[in-house]
């Protein structure tokens, strides 16, 4: 029986490859990508870092990391020297940790800094929750309206891409913590760096900025829970 299924799988693949071959045999000599399209795809989705002209390097964590280094533990020395990079160009902004991060020491989520308990108390429903080695994701639902709030905490290997058109980021301090806010037609976004992790909040535009700042603040002041104990 399995043998027959394997034959089916092989035939499915073969059938699709035949289609691809037929299409590529067709003459599309008139086909040319419009000016800059290929470059746009490259700079937007493939390697934004290497093609960026306008970049802003923000060393946010220097003071914090400096203090950690004085403790002189091996793991502390391996922490990143600089914070994360915000790279902005037309229609697209990338948040990533700096190239100075020691790539031989990949970081994983060790401690979860979460506003979860407080948000549940305030009536949010936890719709989805996922923990991966380098990230923790939540999706909350506002019970009254059914709209979603997505929150993630990311380790140093992560890059966040925010694609938008005609929308500018604004910088604002929330209790001395620099936070980037983006107000789009169909989403509000906040990105910030604290506890050595990158956080981002992406929510429905009906959520007020006061509430967004409150969630940011709860993350900043969270004591943290070791990942091994998280969810228990």
């Amino acid at each position, binding site marked *: *029986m399995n043998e*027959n*299924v394997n*034959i*089916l*799988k*092989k*035939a*499915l*693949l*073969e*059938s*699709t*490859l*035949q*289609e*691809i071959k037929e*299409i*590529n045999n*067709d003459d*599309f000599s008139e*086909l*040319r*990508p*419009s000016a800059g*399209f*290929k470059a746009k*795809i*490259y700079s*937007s*989705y*493939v*390697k934004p870092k290497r093609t960026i002209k306008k970049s802003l390097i923000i060393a946010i964590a220097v003071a914090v990391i400096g203090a950690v280094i004085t403790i002189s533990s091996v793991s502390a020395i391996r922490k990143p020297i600089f914070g994360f990079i915000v790279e902005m160009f037309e229609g697209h902004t990338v948040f990533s940790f700096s190239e100075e991060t020691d*790539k031989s020491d990949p970081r994983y989520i060790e401690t979860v800094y979460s506003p979860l308990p407080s948000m549940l108390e305030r009536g949010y429903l936890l719709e989805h929750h996922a923990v*991966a080695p*380098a*990230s923790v994701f939540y999706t909350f639902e506002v019970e009254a309206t059914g709209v979603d709030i997505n929150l*993630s905490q*990311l380790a140093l*290997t*992560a*890059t*966040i*891409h*925010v*694609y*938008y*058109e*005609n*929308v500018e980021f604004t910088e604002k301090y929330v209790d001395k913590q620099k936070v980037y806010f*983006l107000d*789009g*037609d*169909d*989403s509000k*976004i906040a990105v910030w760096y604290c506890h050595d992790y990158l956080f*981002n909040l*992406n929510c429905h535009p009906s959520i007020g900025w006061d509430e967004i700042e409150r969630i940011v603040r709860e993350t900043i002041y969270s004591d943290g829970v070791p990942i091994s104990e998280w969810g228990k």
Partner: protein
Amino acid sequence: MLVFLSLIETEDERDAIEKIYHEHFDWMLKTAFYFLKNNEDAEDVIQDVFVNLIKNKVNFPIDDEERLRAYLFICIRNTSLALNKKKKKSTVDFSPYTFSTRDDMQQALIEKDFYNEILSYINTIPPIYKDVLMLSLVYDKTTAEISKILNMPFKTTETRLRRAKMLIKKQFKELDI
């Protein structure tokens, strides 16, 4: 207008996207153009496919050239189909995939070899069924993953997969799928 927010978590993910760009971009665009007959629409589809690859983070077969190509083809075809449906255009030519008549089928099934019989039959199945079956059987994707890859509601995916399996089983009773 805000489009979306995505995450590339690892160097492996970044390398995979770069490989697709360098090795497959041109034929991907050509394939989208084949379905849409319009350069602008083809570019929109390619952009959507790249966005989807990054956004959904569903592992794709990066190390197997043929399987990768077939995977990308499915993504392009379905995105093209969705765009066409959205624009309510009638220029897309999916006619090679319309069902054959029973006589055609019987003719196809004259093939002695079981593999050729299956292949002949699969070539007659509409792409909406063939693609979900490919992702399910060849790429071992769950219904939820297929729904993400094809940017399609879960229920629709479930229905298409069930119908695709019914089509195959009706024709080849010995297949247990």
